[in-house]
């Protein structure tokens, strides 16, 4: 049975190894889609609706077409159709310069008959609200209901109950590199596209369908990409448009979204509102849970969230529905449905514990059947100094009050079939590993190098890793569901092992030893039963002569495992005069199986914590009911964490087994609840609505005083 071996036997796997592309990235040498320039390139731009809901009554592209330097103008909506959200595509241009393209957009004539709109959940659900989807009755989709056990009997058994409403707003992905493509038709039947995507083969297949080409005549390249978080699985309208403009003009076209469009149309995490009632028995068992909740995914549906979450409640009833508003569609966003569900559940857990007069960590222990998380509670509590928390919330003295809180999460991340890879050993000793995955930022490029180097007795920098290109025809799945490493690693390992085996067949006669008696050392191959018999790597590969070894890999179920638990502890300081919350420290204990590269695994956890912190304290899409506009479609008023917001983060790689598991998503889940509970512990007032901004803190403190 295949295995990753014992930790003590690993030379590289599980160690802290610097990202191979790190230097290129920090020096600006790494080429992202934004940086791609091709001979004869044109610049694409998209005209978007500024209004939330309207009939298109006229569209005239003539003046834009006549502007010198404009090479193509295409409509993206027909007269007679409706625009249903701000940012919806109207038309696109391709021009010799980006400035000409921008000027051309302003020459497009569009006549809109504005319609009543709704941009907030409250407005959408109000009586007499305008109907905004033709295929729905009203602006709410049918509730999905779920029932287990006997809720009424459960509440009858409860010693305490809590009734509360928790809300998280829409959060946008804020990819540092906005969505976009450079499209270039090599000839009428062959399209090459540089894409900022988290699914090279997904984009390839989509474009092939759209342009009715055999899939292998579309090549998609993503050498480096600046963030996706679930929003970059397909080419989208902008990708189709870039390819269309390129085909019309016979020239390469670069079309990257503006920051504003990125907020408006490139996806978001749906909002969540939960009205929940829950009960617990005197001895601290969750006994009943009744939740009615909704969220908006914009004009689409799909506003799901986890409820209840992590902790087991035997008697439960849940009812969820989607609310449509005139705003851009949701897309998958780092752990879809989990962070918002975790915030509500962990807040609820603290509220119940307080009513029971029980330590909130003790209450969690009673209701959490996961043994990994039980161990994490112990470790995390020790790291943060749980005993230092205020036993009476808000009881600290002084203007700046400190508090400590805890939150939990879970995820799958076990990987799956669908990756093909080749490992090639050349006669000159060079080694190549090729697969069609892409590095969304998790460090898969480095992980591949580590696995191959471990297998062949080389150094990661000796391995030439070729990913992010559909050209070689070795497919791999999209980077979603925290699946990349767990999907790719087994195939790479088996490919490297197969290549090694082939090399051993050449080396065996030289060392006069049977193949199964050969082992790799560090840059050597030796005979296990007689270690004096050894050959240097270069000498061994020299035996290949004119040939190379090139071996594929196979999926091996035994090398990976899904299902992770995580818990985080936060310490915050709340300035009770300004309402400002400063996170002092986060302890993130993340279950993760075998960490191929401990350094980038820690980076993953750090990044998740920062994203969770942003959602807890800063981020919110602000829609104006008056104008239908998003008021903060920029990075001035849409606030993401910056240097001053980043606390001390203690990322603990809690490796419980030697099988590969992905952790891209889970570390962003428990942060919200941990911070919200820490704020409560600091000031003794609970804020049930994210983000916890100074206005909410000051208002809550004023209400407490009154």
């Amino acid at each position, binding site marked *: 049975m295949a295995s990753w071996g014992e930790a003590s036997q690993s030379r590289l796997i599980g160690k802290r190894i610097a990202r191979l592309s790190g230097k290129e990235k920090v020096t600006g040498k790494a080429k992202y889609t934004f940086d791609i320039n091709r001979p004869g390139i044109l610049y694409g731009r998209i005209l978007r609706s*500024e209004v939330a809901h309207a009939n298109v009554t006229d569209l005239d592209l003539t003046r834009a077409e006549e502007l010198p330097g404009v090479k193509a103008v295409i409509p993206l909506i027909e007269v007679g159709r409706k625009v249903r959200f701000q940012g919806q595509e109207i038309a696109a241009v391709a021009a010799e310069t980006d400035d000409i393209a*921008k*000027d051309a957009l302003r020459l497009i004539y569009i006549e809109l008959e504005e319609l009543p709109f709704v941009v907030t959940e409250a407005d959408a659900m109000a009586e007499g609200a305008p109907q905004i989807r033709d295929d729905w009755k009203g602006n709410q989709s049918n509730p999905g209901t779920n029932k287990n056990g006997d809720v009424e009997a459960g509440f009858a058994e409860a010693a305490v109950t809590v009734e509360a409403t928790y809300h998280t707003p829409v959060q946008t992905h804020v990819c540092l590199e906005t969505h976009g493509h450079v499209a270039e038709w090599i000839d009428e039947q062959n399209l090459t596209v540089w894409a900022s995507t988290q699914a090279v083969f997904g984009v390839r297949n989509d474009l092939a369908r759209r342009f009715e080409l055999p899939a292998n005549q579309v090549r998609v390249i993503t050498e480096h990409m600046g963030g996706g978080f679930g929003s970059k699985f397909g080419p989208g309208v902008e990708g189709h448009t870039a390819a269309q403009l390129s085909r019309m003009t016979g020239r390469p076209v670069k079309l990257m979204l503006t920051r504003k469009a990125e907020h408006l149309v490139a996806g978001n995490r749906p909002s969540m509102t939960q009205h929940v009632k829950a009960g617990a028995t005197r001895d601290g068992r969750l006994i009943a849970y009744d939740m009615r909740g909704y969220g908006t995914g914009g004009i689409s549906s799909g506003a799901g969230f986890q409820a209840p979450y992590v902790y087991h409640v035997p008697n439960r009833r849940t009812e969820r529905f989607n609310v449509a508003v005139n705003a851009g569609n949701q897309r998958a966003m780092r752990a879809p449905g989990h962070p918002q569900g975790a915030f509500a559940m962990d807040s609820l857990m603290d509220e119940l514990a307080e009513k029971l007069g029980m330590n909130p960590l003790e209450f969690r222990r009673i209701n959490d059947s996961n043994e990994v998380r039980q161990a994490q509670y112990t470790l995390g509590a020790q790291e943060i100094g749980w005993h230092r928390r205020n036993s009476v919330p808000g009881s600290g003295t002084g*203007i700046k009050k400190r508090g400590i809180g805890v939150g939990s999460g879970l995820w799958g991340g076990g990987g799956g079939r669908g990756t093909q890879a080749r490992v090639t050993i050349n006669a000159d000793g060079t080694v190549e590993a090729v697969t069609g995955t892409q590095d969304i930022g998790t460090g898969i490029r480095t992980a591949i190098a580590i696995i191959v180097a471990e297998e062949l007795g080389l150094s990661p920098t000796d391995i030439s890793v070729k990913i992010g290109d559909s050209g070689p025809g070795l497919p791999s799945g999209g980077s979603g569901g925290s699946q990349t490493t767990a999907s790719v690693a087994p195939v790479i390992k088996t490919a490297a092992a197969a290549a090694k085996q082939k090399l051993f067949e050449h080396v065996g006669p030289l060392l006069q030893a049977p193949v199964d008696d050969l082992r790799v050392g560090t840059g050597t191959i030796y005979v296990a039963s007689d270690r004096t018999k050894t050959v240097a790597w270069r000498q061994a590969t020299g035996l290949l002569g004119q040939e190379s070894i090139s071996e594929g890999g196979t999926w091996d179920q035994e090398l990976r495992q899904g299902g992770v638990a995580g818990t985080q502890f936060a310490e915050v300081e709340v300035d009770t*005069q*300004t*309402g*400002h919350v400063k996170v002092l420290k986060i302890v993130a204990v993340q279950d993760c199986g075998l960490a191929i590269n401990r350094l980038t695994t820690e980076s993953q956890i750090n990044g998740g914590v920062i994203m969770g912190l942003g959602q807890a304290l*800063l981020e919110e899409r*602000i829609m*104006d*009911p*008056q*104008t239908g*506009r998003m*008021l*903060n479609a920029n990075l*001035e*008023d849409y*606030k993401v*964490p*910056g*240097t*001053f*917001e980043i606390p001390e983060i203690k990322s603990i790689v809690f490796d419980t087994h030697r099988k590969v598991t992905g952790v891209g998503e889970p570390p962003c889940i428990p942060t919200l609840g941990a911070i919200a509970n820490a704020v409560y512990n600091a000031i003794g007032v609970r804020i049930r609505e994210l983000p916890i*901004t*100074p*206005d*909410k803190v*000051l*208002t809550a403190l*004023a209400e407490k005083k009154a």
Partner: protein
Amino acid sequence: MDKFSYVNATSLKQVTSLLSDSGWGEVMMIAGGTDLLSELKEYIETPKTLVNLKTLPGMDSISANASGLKIGALVTVADIAMHPTIQQHYTVLAQAAASVATPQIRNVGTLGGNLCQRPRCWYYRDETVNCLKKGGDICYAVNGLSKYHAILGGDPVYIVHPSDIAPALIALNASLKIAGPEGEKTLKVEEFFTLPAANPFRENVLEPNEIVVEVQVPQPKPNTKSFYLKAREKGAPDFALASVAGVFEMTGKTCQTASVVLGGVAPAPWRSAEAETALTGKMINESVSRKAGAEAVKDAQPMNDNVYKVTLTQNLVSRTAMMAVS
């Protein structure tokens, strides 16, 4: 942005004559450009000509002597923040400058630009929203989302003035020199800023053909303590939710004179005479400082979303006063 011609300035006379016939918006001045460029990119402004002020000689230095400071309008925000004399004797000014934006912006943004920058209001900054400030009929903040808007002096335009440096200069009793076609004039920085009731379209008294050339700051008395406190949602870059520039002449714990100027809460930097009165001649302690805070906001008229600013401003004023005795 729309196309424009670009002229390098050679003299103040040339600048004012280039400006003189055009009214607002046709010919505009650019120095650091940190505010103007975003207005151009968003088509909030569409000038035909930009006059580059950075080529003007002699306007980019700080001189400090016993009578006070002279700071050219082209001095960068960073230079003000880092100047040792300003840090030592005009602390509130150095602190205010250091709180502006990010190092990159402070390195190019200028004093003149900081004082003349336009509002950050999210309705004003949206090209497609024709608000009152831009000649439309209504201030959208009134019935809209007003979290970052004014609690004092708003009517009829509820923007807040975004400058951090202006409250500090007013608290230090600074003056400002303006050049125009008729020559130069000097006025108090406090008199430079106007409220929307006087002019809903502009934030100061500058005429279309005038330019700020210098700021003069009298040297505070040796027993002066001064502070700039700025509350914001994010460490940087972020504009003030509310800020307080406080300048206190102290004898022991007694405040002889007090200057208290608020930022981020009104369409102009807002001198709180009420807070000053509450502190002047008093031994500063918890209750006196709390009274000063309450006095500062007693006329506040918050909107739907900015009631919190009343408490915040009150607390910041109290905190600033307490810093004078700590």
